[in-house]
């Protein structure tokens, strides 16, 4: 037993617990509260962010473009996606985003999953009632039931609207994901500065980004310390509510304290209200080409959409 020889931990700590039947036939399975689940799931954003920093370092079309050029291109294309009236134009745009992802050596499966699992399923649920004749009146395509002698069901207009909204949301999210996943966060911030976001805000955004993870850790620790002191099942009563309020309040106090310390540290290092950046970036010719391509394709999509009819 080489492990036991190295460690001086007691044997009982190293041995596993007697496993309860996972099907729940022995003992009682606890479902856990939403609070617990949220805290456990809170490490996901961290993992996602780490992942995007990795992707941003890979060689590819989008990774090579200047963040400012990408940001401007994305906004132009987002507006174009908002202006078109036809699902076909949106489908063309969606295929183009997939092409860009492939050119940037992103896994297509990842992009499709990220876009289609997260929000558009939520969107689809939201727009589903709009496909029925009770919300959107029109020509009934598929009759489901009758109401006072009137046939009710999916309408052509409703289905078209749903298709339009879902595809527009999918294109918009794909564009945002493409930008954020191929750009390191620090460079994205510098890009925000160049589209006119004041320095004051950029500075706050950059700092807040770092504190999210710190505060997340604090919350998790607070919750863990509470549960480690709790004997018996967690009840959802007045004490639980006051715990949530008190931990939020304590977090507020900690945050305030932290901000005072950070302020002192910043002033000690010479901060006088002006943020300075080390690397000033210049737009290269390829970036101008990138922006022009984005503007031209946005224009082409909008004009093409007009030809398709409204």
């Amino acid at each position, binding site marked *: 037993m080489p492990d036991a020889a190295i460690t001086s931990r007691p044997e009982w700590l190293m041995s596993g617990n007697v496993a309860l039947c996972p099907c729940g036939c022995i003992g009682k399975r606890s479902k856990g509260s*939403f*609070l617990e689940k*949220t805290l456990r799931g809170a490490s996901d*954003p961290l993992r*996602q*962010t780490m992942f995007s920093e990795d992707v941003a370092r890979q060689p590819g079309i989008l990774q090579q473009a200047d963040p400012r050029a990408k940001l401007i291109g994305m*906004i132009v294309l*987002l*507006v174009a*996606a*908002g202006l078109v009236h036809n699902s076909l134009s949106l489908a063309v745009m969606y295929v183009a985003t997939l092409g860009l992802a492939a050119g940037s050596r992103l896994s297509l499966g990842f992009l499709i999953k*990220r876009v289609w699992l*997260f929000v558009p399923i939520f969107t689809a*649920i*939201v727009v589903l009632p*709009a496909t029925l004749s009770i*919300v959107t009146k*029109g020509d009934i395509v598929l009759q489901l039931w009758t109401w006072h002698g009137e046939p009710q069901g999916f309408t052509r*207009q*409703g289905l078209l*609207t*749903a298709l*339009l*909204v879902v595809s*527009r*949301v999918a*294109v*918009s*999210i794909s564009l*945002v994901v493409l930008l*954020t996943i191929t750009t390191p966060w620090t460079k*994205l911030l510098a890009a925000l500065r160049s589209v006119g976001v004041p320095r*004051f*805000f950029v*500075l*706050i*955004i*950059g700092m*807040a980004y770092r*504190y*999210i993870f*710190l*505060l997340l850790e604090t919350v998790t620790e607070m919750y863990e310390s509470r549960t480690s002191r709790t004997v018996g099942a967690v009840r959802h009563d007045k004490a639980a509510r006051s715990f949530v*309020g008190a931990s*939020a*309040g*304590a*977090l*507020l*106090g900690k*945050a*305030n304290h*932290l*901000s*005072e310390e*950070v*302020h002192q540290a*910043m002033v000690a290092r010479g*901060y006088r209200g002006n943020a300075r950046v080390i690397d000033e970036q210049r737009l290269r010719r390829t970036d101008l080409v990138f922006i022009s391509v984005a503007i031209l394709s946005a224009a082409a999509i909008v004009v093409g959409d007009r030809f398709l009819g*409204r």
Partner: protein
Amino acid sequence: MHIPDGYLSPSTCAVGYAVAIPFWSLAARKVSKVVRTRNVPMLAVFSALCFLIMMFNVPIPDGTTAHAVGGVVVAICLGPWAAVIAVSVALLFQALLFGDGGVLSYGVNVVNMAIILPFVGLGVYRLIAGRTPLTGRRRVLAAAVGGYVGINFAALAAAIEFGIQPDLFTSSSGVPLYSPYHLSQTIPAMALPHLTIAGLCEAVLSAGVIAYLQRADVRRLVPNHPGIPVHEGDVEVAPGRLSPARVAIGFMTVAVLLTPLGLLAPGGAFGEDAPADLDLGPLGLHTVPAGLEKYNGFWSHAVLGGYGFSNGDHANLAYILSAVVGIIVVGAAIFLIASIVRLVLSRRQGVGQETDEDIAHA
């Protein structure tokens, strides 16, 4: 409540930015005026805090989730302008990192959650708390109601933004281009979960934080409550007066929030459009009274007659335009009247002070 891209037309998103940008610049100016360098880390930390609060989604039976925003708490502790910045930054993270809320619709989301929510919530909090001491029980209740009302107003605003889409933007074949639901559907759909679950979350959060700070760290409430005594027996400082600008802005905010309700109301009131519309039968009258007939339409030079353009085109757009014009005009009138009242009051007080000084000298 986060509106993703694709639900709102680009023009609605542009209006969102047009409303948000002046608020941002005012907030930046107001907040950095207090203490220059200190605010940067403070706002950064509070933005991160708001982001975390918004991550705590509570499942709602219909398949979506509701969440507290925390904007009212930040407004109570740091002031409404700090809350504008803190919540805006948190919303930007959500839009860029997690696709929660869009980039084009960011301005609209900011208007709902970073502007309407903290201002309305803080207003209600101040109204209920009045001048009670900082450690009083009434402040906890005030924070709860403030949080509840604030988040519900934000949800109402989101519902209105969704609900006007099918009226304003449809293709030639009558297919709605953006959010397909009308106001009569969006308002109940948003109100139900927010009146029950999300409103309760925000209320519990706001009240809990204020109750905790009262118990453990009441100092943190002092800077944003000038002139309010901490404990029951403390001396109260003279209350600050309502400035004309505040009265006018307060009125305009309420008016803007209530305006779209007019789109829902059917029919006219008391035959305001034409006396012939009046139901005179139950009154025992068979014709419109002569005086009413004569003086109706006495003034025929209205700029936006019937809350619309003269040719009757774009009825809903014209209604909203009329509302904007009306609100600005009435807001300016209130500002003028309040200014005059203040001038008269300060003159009268000035006279009173002089006499007091005279007496002291004598």
